[in-house]
């Protein structure tokens, strides 16, 4: 297969693959915010720095704390679309991995619910104004919940790629799947969330006009660290790839995306270095870093899919994809997709420009707290 992804596949397969990859990219952006964001919050609570300007009361931490429930809600909502398309593309392998991991896999549901409520607790006045360890413990517990979920997805994905191992795994009654690729792959995705989170927070700080040089420099350093770690993990993971997957990445199908991921990585590294040396949030640079991050995430997502496509007998699935593509409803979906996207935009407009009633009281416990906190600083 030498045509760039997804052009080497029959049209229905290419269509669903494209939808899957694009929706997964959006999901990854939200996941990055939630995972790396809670990690950041835990770190700054336990390492608060100078008492006169504790890191956990800085604008970045306040912003993250305030927006984290929405970030996680976005991750879950955005995760529904790729979850739908993966069932069309790889139904049997995906379902089998789910079944094999059984209780271990299903545990992500209560764990995510617990993590979600922890984010609301983290936002509460009691946590914000209490001792740093309290907020740190909440953030760390939430991070553990999300890290467990990420680990479970990685495990599920890797197990789904090894049909030959399924009967023995089932027979052994094991609920944990260990393979050498697990840690580097998990590290790659976990490290990759850091620069994305840093970027999103920088945008929020810029929009709120509250980014201090020290915070920007800290976020830049973190993003650089994330980029470095993700590169190391990618190199480690690359050495463990089966020949077919390596062929995909280096051949006509995957090489353009590998190139995009590398270009995006370098772009981001250059811009974060700039921010580190001159911590002034300029929208042009942020936009360029965003483009770089998108390229990297898109490239890596396609390469991830390439590994799967090289591991499974995908030709046998073409007929199923063709059959799925024949069912009706696409037109209705597209109509409502456009309409509802516009309405989501209108919601944002209403929220920002909806006009305050005369004598309206500010809403307690939300962004007003944040502004007050900033003013106190």
């Amino acid at each position, binding site marked *: 297969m030498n045509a760039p992804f997804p052009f080497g596949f029959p049209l229905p397969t290419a269509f669903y693959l494209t939808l899957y990859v694009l929706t997964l990219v959006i999901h990854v952006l939200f996941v990055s915010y939630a995972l790396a964001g809670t990690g950041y919050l835990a770190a700054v609570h336990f390492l608060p720095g100078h008492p006169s300007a504790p890191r956990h009361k800085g604008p970045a931490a306040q912003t993250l704390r305030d927006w984290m429930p*929405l970030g996680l*809600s*976005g991750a*879950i*909502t955005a*995760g*529904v*679309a790729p*979850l*739908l398309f993966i*069932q*069309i593309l790889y*139904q049997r392998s995906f*379902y*089998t991995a*789910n*079944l*094999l991991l*059984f209780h271990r896999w*299903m545990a992500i*549901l209560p764990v995510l*619910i617990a993590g*979600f*409520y922890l984010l*609301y607790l983290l936002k509460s006045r009691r946590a914000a104004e209490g001792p740093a360890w309290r907020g740190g413990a909440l953030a760390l517990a939430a991070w553990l919940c999300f890290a467990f979920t990420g680990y479970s997805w990685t495990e599920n994905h890797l197990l789904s790629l090894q049909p030959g191992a*399924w*009967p023995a795994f*089932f*027979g052994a*009654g094991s609920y944990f799947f260990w393979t050498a690729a697990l840690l580097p792959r998990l590290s790659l995705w976990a490290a990759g969330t850091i620069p994305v989170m840093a970027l999103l927070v920088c945008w929020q700080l810029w929009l709120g006009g509250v980014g201090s040089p020290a915070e920007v420099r800290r976020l830049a350093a973190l993003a650089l660290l994330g980029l470095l770690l993700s590169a190391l993990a990618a190199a480690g993971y690359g050495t463990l790839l089966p020949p077919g997957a390596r062929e995909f990445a280096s051949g006509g199908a995957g090489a353009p995306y590998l190139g995009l991921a590398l270009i995006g990585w370098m772009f981001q590294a250059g811009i974060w270095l700039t921010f580190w040396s001159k911590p002034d949030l300029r929208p042009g640079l942020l936009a360029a870093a965003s483009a770089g991050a998108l390229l990297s995430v898109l490239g890596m997502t396609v390469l991830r899919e390439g590994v799967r496509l090289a591991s499974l007998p995908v030709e046998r699935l073409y007929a199923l994809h063709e059959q*799925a593509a024949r*069912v*009706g*409803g*696409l037109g*209705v*979906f597209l109509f*409502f*997709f456009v*309409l*509802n*996207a516009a*309405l*989501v935009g*209108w*919601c*944002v407009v*209403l*929220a*920002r420009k*909806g*006009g*305050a*009633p005369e004598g*309206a*009281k*500010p*809403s307690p416990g*939300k*962004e007003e707290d944040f502004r007050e906190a900033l003013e106190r600083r």
Partner: protein
Amino acid sequence: MEFPYYPINDFGPAMKGMIIGGLGIFHVFLAQFAIGGGMLMCYFQWLSQTGREPAAREALDGYFKFLVLVSFVTGALTGVGMWFTAIQISPRTIGMMVEEFHWIWATEWTFFCLEIAAGYAYYRHGAGLSDPARMRLLVLYSVAAWFSLFWVNGILSWQLTPGGWAPGGNVWAGFFNPSFWPSLLYRTFASTSIAALVACVVVNAHPRLSLAQRDAVIHRAAHFLIPMVLMPFLGLWYLYTLPPDSRAWALGGSAAMTLFTGVAAGASLFVGLYALIGLNLQRLTINGATATLLLGLAFVATGGGEFVREGVRKPYTIRAALFSNSIKPDEIAELRRIGSVTRDPYPLRDAARYPNDQVRLGAKVFRFQCSVCHTLSGANGLVHLAGTWTPDQMRLNIAKLQQTKPFMPPFSGTADELEALVQMIAWAKAGSPSEWPSSNEIATIVQIDRWLQEAGISPGWYRERKQ
């Protein structure tokens, strides 16, 4: 033919139906609360902004926080959880639903996104917005929530009454199926009722409302219970649209289904009468404890209704397309010829505990054909159901399963597999001894084969109708 075997998990003494049913009822209740809650909040906003009920605004903001904490978190995640749980219970069922209706689900997802966006916009900024902006956000939220119901309702009702749909056929023929409209309307009014009852609980617990204000707001919320008068008629309409066999299970044909139909109807009736006579006509006050009790009854009614909706589909999970044990009608003949578990690649996890190969084969047959609805000796256990039968009774009853119990699918294996299943049940009934003789009489297998041929491969109800 390549049958798609999946690993089948064991839930111990619990029936798999209990697992998905429990989560499903919980999720449906939360989802209906979110749908009705949106409409109720629009009503409260209107009462507030038109000056008809000044306390409605305070109640609305308190209610909304509760809704966010319950529905946006647990409701959303149990929704995703339903997919994962459905995979655990019956991957072929959820797979077929996704294959046929993925654009409907994708459409529903766009409404879910709108619901989340409007909800969070209101949550973060609602208190500081003008009344028209608040109302617009609430209307967007409630319309999106209701449309989520609209789309999902089409898929769920299709499972029971696919109407003119055929596999790979017109998706809209399946979506707008015979029970679509009664089910949609019934669920809509169930949603408004649940929302009103939750409001009674939340308002009673609101610290900033005086007693008089609470009463006033609760009586406004009680208006959302009035549509309950239509629910009996909608229920009858729904029953009318069901296939005759399914309707029969709910109305006397199956003790469990009839009992749960009665529970759902009785609990709904009690809530409805209290709401109409007590709250709306007599204008009685209702405290938090009573409101919680009524909400509990509404949960029971929801649970009973969902149990019946799931149960009366038997012997199918998708009517006429997929049996409850995930075997398609057109696969039975082949499985009877080659054996249902001959090509099953997944070994028994506890093979050593069985005394011989025949019982091991029986255990695999049980896992493949029976375990989705039965345990061996736990809930709905085969030992309890069939353990007192003589071996010949078991052979006959299982060979002619769809006629023994018309809500059971036909047995889908060879005569040898059936005999192995009989031996496995008898062995379990005997206390799972370490020694157990194999039964290998040719005459027994020939007799089972004859019974299987007599039973045929059509579902029992169809056969009865034909005769």
